[in-house]
């Protein structure tokens, strides 16, 4: 390897907190215990090296390497490689050290409070992982005969039944691989429904301006025009604007309830009636299902189709890329269009429901059962909670959010909708700090990292300037919530007394403040020697 290619990125220069914070008022007396332990200075240049950069010709780590004498006689010669792949050549200890160091750079739910609004970063119970990894589940081949996969099929069938029950829908498909694909599935079914009725003049989907960006994107992907509906001053859908927008061209509306503004849409019944009377359908974006799980059912609110983010509400891992799972539930009128396969049960055996029974299905979204391993984890999670446990998720998620909101309000922070009860999340706006101190939501967010908290969602929803969208989830203790409030109070004091601490934050992370413009414009994702 050519050493001149090495500095693909510069090792970050670490400055010890004591040097940097020596002038901060009272910082050490109160704040130091929360400070993340400092990464070791990169004196030897190894801290930020890639595994390939450790490579040394001829070095081997054989303990876990695959068998090299595999039988390849059944692979055509044309497809056999003639030279060895360019894998890093390193010792076992180098591998262990390299990946252990990498793991220590992680900022994750397993190490830190992670109040990332709209993302539901709750604890992923280890039991779900352990049970989903049982050899019978793990080694099941997707082409295995139905008779040999009855256990797995039973789990999937029961998951379908539980999701139907908790959302109030008529049928559920588990195959969409993530929330976005679930959305696509839902709106594609709305389209299939109108098409099947010969109702082809409907070309518009209504989307409130508080919606997740995926909603309008989904509508466009399904060939619809997007009609944006404004939000009123209380954070509800503007009913007057909605009435004016609904018409014979309306295919449906996509709603998140509770909305991304962290409030429950109070006139949902009125909205549902209005849309249904016009012949449109209601799509429920399940991003915020955690707030109402087991308490209120989207089916009862009048929704015709709903996607669920199992990696949010049902606690499957979604750090580091998931994978996700976005099952979709439908009302009776959309059931014929549901994507396959779905698991059926005749009282005796479990079986795949296929196109023979559902000729109007919009098709298949994945070759097999979607992200089966993720579905297993969600199933186990749901089984552990039971019906009684599910509503406790919503109880504690909303209690934690309201507790945090009340304490931050008390501490002088401005919430976006002070007159409203928070759902499972709420919005703090730092508009005042920005005006008076020149401190932005991003500065606050970056400084929180130094206090060992993952930052809340910033600058979303777009309607509220300088906002932090804070979602504590039900799995945090009161002590953790209190510590977060204390950090916010201290950062506010820093903003007033030593704003440079915020402007230059984070000070203690392996990567310091990023140049976001450059990061967005000059992506550097691939290592090359």
């Amino acid at each position, binding site marked *: 390897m050519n050493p001149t290619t090495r500095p693909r990125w510069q090792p970050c220069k670490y400055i010890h907190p004591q040097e940097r914070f020596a002038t901060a008022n009272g910082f050490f007396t109160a704040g130091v215990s929360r400070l993340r332990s400092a990464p070791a200075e990169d004196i030897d240049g190894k801290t930020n090296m890639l595994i390939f950069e450790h490579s040394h010709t001829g070095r081997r780590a054989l303990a876990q390497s695959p068998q090299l004498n595999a039988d390849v006689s059944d692979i055509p010669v044309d497809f056999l490689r003639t030279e060895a792949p360019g894998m890093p050549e390193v010792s076992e200890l180098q591998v262990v050290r390299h990946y252990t160091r990498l793991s220590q750079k992680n900022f994750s739910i397993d190490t830190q409070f992670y109040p990332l609004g709209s993302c539901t970063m709750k604890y992923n119970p280890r039991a779900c992982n352990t049970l989903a990894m049982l050899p019978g589940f793990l080694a099941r081949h997707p082409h295995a005969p139905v008779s040999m996969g009855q256990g797995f099929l039973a789990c999937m069938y029961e998951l379908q039944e539980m999701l139907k029950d908790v959302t109030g829908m008529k049928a559920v498909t588990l195959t969409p691989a993530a929330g976005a694909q679930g959305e696509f599935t839902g709106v594609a079914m709305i389209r299939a429904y109108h098409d099947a009725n010969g109702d082809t003049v409907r070309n518009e989907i209504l989307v409130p301006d508080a919606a997740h960006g995926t909603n309008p994107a989904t509508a466009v992907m399904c060939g619809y025009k997007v009609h944006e509906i404004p939000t009123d*001053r209380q954070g509800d859908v503007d009913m007057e604007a909605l009435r004016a927008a609904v018409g014979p061209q309306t295919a449906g509306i996509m709603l998140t309830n509770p909305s991304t503004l962290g409030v429950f849409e109070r006139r949902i019944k009125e909205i549902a009636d209005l849309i249904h009377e016009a012949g449109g359908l209601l799509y429920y974006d399940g991003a915020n299902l955690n707030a109402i799980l087991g308490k209120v059912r989207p089916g009862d609110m009048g929704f015709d189709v709903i996607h669920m983010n199992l990696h949010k509400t049902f606690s499957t891992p979604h750090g580091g890329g998931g994978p996700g799972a976005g099952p979709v539930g439908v009302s009776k009128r959309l059931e014929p269009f549901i994507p396959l396969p779905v698991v059926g049960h005749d009282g005796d055996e479990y079986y795949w429901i296929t196109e023979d029974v559902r000729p109007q299905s919009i098709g298949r979204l994945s070759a097999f059962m979607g992200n089966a391993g993720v579905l297993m984890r969600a199933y186990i999670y749901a089984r552990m909670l039971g019906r009684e446990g599910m509503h406790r998720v919503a109880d504690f998620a909303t209690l934690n959010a309201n507790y945090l909101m009340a304490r931050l309000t008390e501490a002088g922070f401005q919430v976006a909708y002070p007159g409203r009860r928070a759902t499972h999340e709420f919005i703090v*706006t730092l*508009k005042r700090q920005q005006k008076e101190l020149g401190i932005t939501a991003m500065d606050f967010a970056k400084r929180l990292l130094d206090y060992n908290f993952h930052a809340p969602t910033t*600058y979303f929803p*777009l309607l509220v*300037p300088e906002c932090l969208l804070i979602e504590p989830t039900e799995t945090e203790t009161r002590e953790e919530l209190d510590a977060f409030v204390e950090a916010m109070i201290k950062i506010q004091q820093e903003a007033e007394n030593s704003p440079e601490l915020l402007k230059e934050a984070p000070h203690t992370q392996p990567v310091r403040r990023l140049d*976001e*413009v450059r990061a*967005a*414009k000059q992506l550097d994702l691939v290592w090359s020697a």
Partner: protein
Amino acid sequence: MSNVPVELKYAKTHEYARVNDDGSVTVGISDSAQDQLGDMVFIELPEVGQTLAAAEACAVVESVKAASDVYAPVGGEVVEVNEALVDSPETVNQDTYGEGWLFRLQPADVAEMASLMDAEAYEEFLASEVH
């Protein structure tokens, strides 16, 4: 307070319109809009010769925070676009009323200009926005 030049007209969607001597209209986003959006990373411009209706989405400004549509403040034909922004979108942050203009229109109906706000009305509008 954001900069709201008195000689310009403004749309509720935060575009400004400047009437040039030749009757064409230069369009950009207001100082308040660029400030809210933050550092620009990409700008997508309309095509020269494209005919736009008033309030039609015709350009996209993408910042580190969000991507936003830009709407034509009045209808007309696009006669020039600011190509320089493709390579240096940050100009919108630095000089939105000058070098940071987006495109120039030949308005189809000059009377449409009357529907836009003057500087005073736009300042009131900015102050009245909920958040």
